Every structure is written in structure tokens, then in C-alpha cells.
């Protein structure tokens, strides 16, 4: 591949996901903004909430792998080499981190007063 161009990636992902691409990107940006805003407002991280979010994150990674298996008509049991383990780790990692950020932000904004009390 001669031209590893971000515009090509964008075009391909747009074909792959359609309008969902923008929904997902917006959701991701919204989650990160909400997370950062929460950190700023609370002037730090609430470890109790983070641990809960991380517990959900473990499940989020598994969910990401299940979705991946469904859309690719295959699964991580088909791994045949290091590149596959890297992909599995990547998919799990993205699913886990996204879940942690989203859960932490949602929990924080849903119960803001409790955290301060």
C-alpha cells in the first residue's frame, strides 16, 4: 500500500459503518469531554468510582471481542500468530478503556453531589 492516507482510511470507515461512524466518533468525543470535565470539576479522580468503572471495563473488553467475532464471522479462537494476539489485545483494550471512560463519566455526572458530600 503506497498511500497510507488518513483520507483513505476515513473513506473506508465511512463505507464500513455509514452514518454510524459519525455517531460513534461523536459518542467517543462526548465521553472523553464529559470525563475530562468531571476531572476538572472534582479536581481529581474518585478512586472508588474508578474501581467500579474498571470492573465494568473488564466486561466491556469482552463485549468488544464478542462484537468483533460477530461482524467478522470468526473469533479470537482463530488466532494463528502474534499479529492476531496483538489485534485481540487491541480490540479488548479499546472496549475496556471506552467502557471505563464512559462509565466513570456517567456515574460521576449522575451522582455529582454524593461525591462531594
Amino acid at each position, binding site marked *: 500500500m503506497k498511500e497510507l492516507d488518513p483520507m483513505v482510511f476515513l473513506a473506508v470507515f465511512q463505507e464500513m459503518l455509514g452514518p454510524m461512524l459519525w455517531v460513534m466518533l461523536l459518542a467517543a468525543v462526548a465521553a472523553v469531554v464529559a470525563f475530562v470535565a468531571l476531572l476538572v470539576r472534582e479536581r481529581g479522580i474518585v478512586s472508588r468510582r474508578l474501581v467500579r468503572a474498571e470492573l465494568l471495563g473488564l466486561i466491556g473488553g469482552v463485549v468488544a471481542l464478542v462484537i468483533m467475532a460477530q461482524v467478522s464471522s470468526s473469533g479470537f479462537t482463530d488466532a494463528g*500468530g502474534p499479529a492476531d494476539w496483538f*489485534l485481540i489485545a487491541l480490540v479488548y483494550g479499546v472496549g475496556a478503556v471506552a467502557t471505563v471512560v464512559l462509565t466513570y463519566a456517567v456515574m460521576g455526572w449522575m451522582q455529582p453531589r454524593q461525591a462531594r458530600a
Partner: protein
Amino acid sequence: MSTPRLPDLQDPAVEPLRRRFLASLGALPLAAAVGTTTAPARAATIKTQARIVIAGGGAAGLTAASRLAAALDGASITVVDPRKEHWYQPGFTLVAAGIKPQDYVVSGTASYVPRGVEWVSEKVAEIDPEGQKVVTDSGKVLPYDFLIVALGLELHYAGIEGMDTARIGQDGLGSIYHSPQAAAATWGAMSQFSKAGGVGVFGRPAGEMKCAGAPLKYAFITDDRLRRAGTRSKAELVYMAQSKSLFGVPIVAEKVRMLFQDRGVKVNHEHVLQSIDLGKRIATYKTPTGTAEQSYDFINVVPPMRAPEAVRNSPLPWTEGAFAADGWMEVDRDTLRHKRYPNVFGVGDVAGVPKGKTAASVKWQVPVALDHLIGDISGKASQEVYNGYTSCPLITRLGQAMLIEFDYKDNLITSFPGVIAPLEELWISWVMKTMALKPTYISMLRGKA
């Protein structure tokens, strides 16, 4: 006999066009600053009144149309193809594997014809490179300054005595290439075979063919289906190779030999399907010593392939050498420009070049050919070269594939060096085949990839 010349760009009549081209260049930075340059090819738009005819609206024709529409301003671009349906052919094996539904590979040609391009929904009946015109089956005459031939190839089922495409899906007869319907019907026949077992026969024709990996893939997929059904021990799989090798690229051929040995697929070399008795389920092969019969319970018939009639009957094919008999176009392998008619280009399956009959090849051929065509218009000769790039995600079982990429010289090319090893059976390669390939292909048709 006069050889058509390229449009003379030094002609004073062309000069105003050139000035407009330069003026349009001047406007570019502003356009870029406000983000209005959405041209997929991201090249400067060139003003021209050239008449460009694209014979064939498949993968190569539509890709060429999209890129030309984006790169040229004022050109008359015409695509000639009667087919309303567009078939995503790289997906046929997935349909025949029972992985994807039939409609996965079907879309509409109209959705890919870019604005500003005229689509003549008629069959190309005649190509006259001397008179610089294309004639359709209704008698419509389309004169051109430049011609891009992207008519693909013809599946020559009649070249196998006794073959009847209407019976694909019945009596253990499969043939993936024919159509989306045939691919689905082939899955029906193979699915039955995978439950019952018996003798499964695979192979490929002599001569050039599109995606030479597909017949191999289907042998691997059938093996896997049998294993998953627990019937592998009740089945014998035979692969009939047309030559002494299993694949045109030696290092890949050797890997496939090892995998077939591992999976217990028997190989017969120099066996070319000559005739078939669909009722008795007997295939007859031409061999160096005569003919050989092979009975089967399931067979995947891959027909001989040749250039379409309109090309074979034109002066465009090679007149000597390996590509002459089947009428493949005599183009320069580096530029895809016709060797005798410089204003004619041949891209996609129809091009008489070694390798290169895959959608991935189209992705690399079309930009090179167009760069040379546009170079003729702008007067700036192109240096772009097509190196024979061909890619084949060779499925070796459901869930794994080898991402094989190579060039004219049988070199392996690695798109992801150090990450995806070409001769390794990997899930990531399968994921690319099932998830990323179709969106990439569609982006290609739209001129965006």
C-alpha cells in the same frame, strides 16, 4: 492503415485550454484554504474537452470513471455497460462458503456512476481503434479521443463439453464464478457434500484467469466445512492443477503444497477439465498422456476464461505470444497503454499482462493508466509504473487467511511488514477479508481509495 495519433496538445486550438488549466491552478490554493477541494484523486483539476469512452462499467471501469470525473473539468466521459447490477466479485467465495448471504455481493451500477459521467446502458458490440469509435449493440456510435477498455473477461463455460450453468447447485455441481446466484447455489451443493462426504474435486483452467487463488481457497474452505461437520474422514478431496505448479508465484505454490499435504488434499498436476457428465458425475481431464476420468460427489467447476467478444473481434488483442489465443489486450505491462494504439488503455481483467486479474490489481492499475492518459492531455508525460501488484487473501480455513501480495517478478510484497506475515495463516488476514475489503473496494469504485 494509419495509427491514430494522440490529440496534438501543441495545436494552437488547444492553447486556450492550456491557459485555462493554468488559471485553474492559480485558484487552487484558495480552494484548498476553504476546504472545497473534494476531488477524490486530489489532483489539480485539468480543463479539457477530450472525449473519453470507458468500455465496461465493472470494477475497473467505474474506478476509472470516478477518478477521471474528479481529475478533469469539461471532459466528456462516457461509460458503456448494460449491467444494472454491480457484483462485488471478491465476495463470491464468502457466499459460496456459507459465510455471507447472496445479496452481500450485489449492488447497483448507478450508485457508483459519478456526476458528470454519462452512462450508456448498452453492450459494446464493436471497438474500432482505427476510426477511434466504439459501437454499441443498438448501433450507437461513440467517437473518442481516448478509450479505456475495462470489459473484464468472458467465462467460457462452453469450453467444457457437457457443462450446463443452469444446473449449478444440482447433482453436486458447483461453480462460484458464474454469478451471485451460482455462488449461493454452490454453497447449497457443498453444504450437502460436507454432511454426506464422498469425493470432492477442485481445480482451475489452463490460461489466464481472474483471482487464481479462489479455486485453492474453495478447496480449503470445503476441507474446513467437512472437519466442522465431523465428516472429513468420509471424504476425499482432489485438486486438479492445470500445470506442474499450484500457483503462479513459486514461494506461494510451495506453501500451498505444504498446506494441502497437511489437510490431506490430493493433488494431480497437469489436469485440465475438458468435459463433464453432470448426470453420471464424471469429470474428464486432459493430461500430458491423454485423458483421465474422475468421478465426484461434489465439484467446483472453474471455466476457461478469455477476453470478451468485442475485444477478441477487434484489432486490440495480442497477435502473438501467450496472451494471443484468448484475445487479451496488447498493452504495455508498465503503463497499461495499448502497444499499437497509444490513445487506448486496457485495465482490469481484459489487460494482457502477467498476473493482475484481481480487484486489488485494479486499484493499482487504474491510477497508473489514468496518470498516463492525463499526462497526454496536460502535456506532462507520466512516469508512473504498474509493477504487477496483485493481492489475494488466501483463505486456508474459515477464520484464517494468508494475505498474499506479489508483483510481476513473483516477489512477495508486504503491506504491513513486520506485522502481517504473508505466508502465515492468520485471523487478522481473515478479518481484513471479511470486514475491510468490501468497504475498501467500494471506496475504490468511488475514486476515494
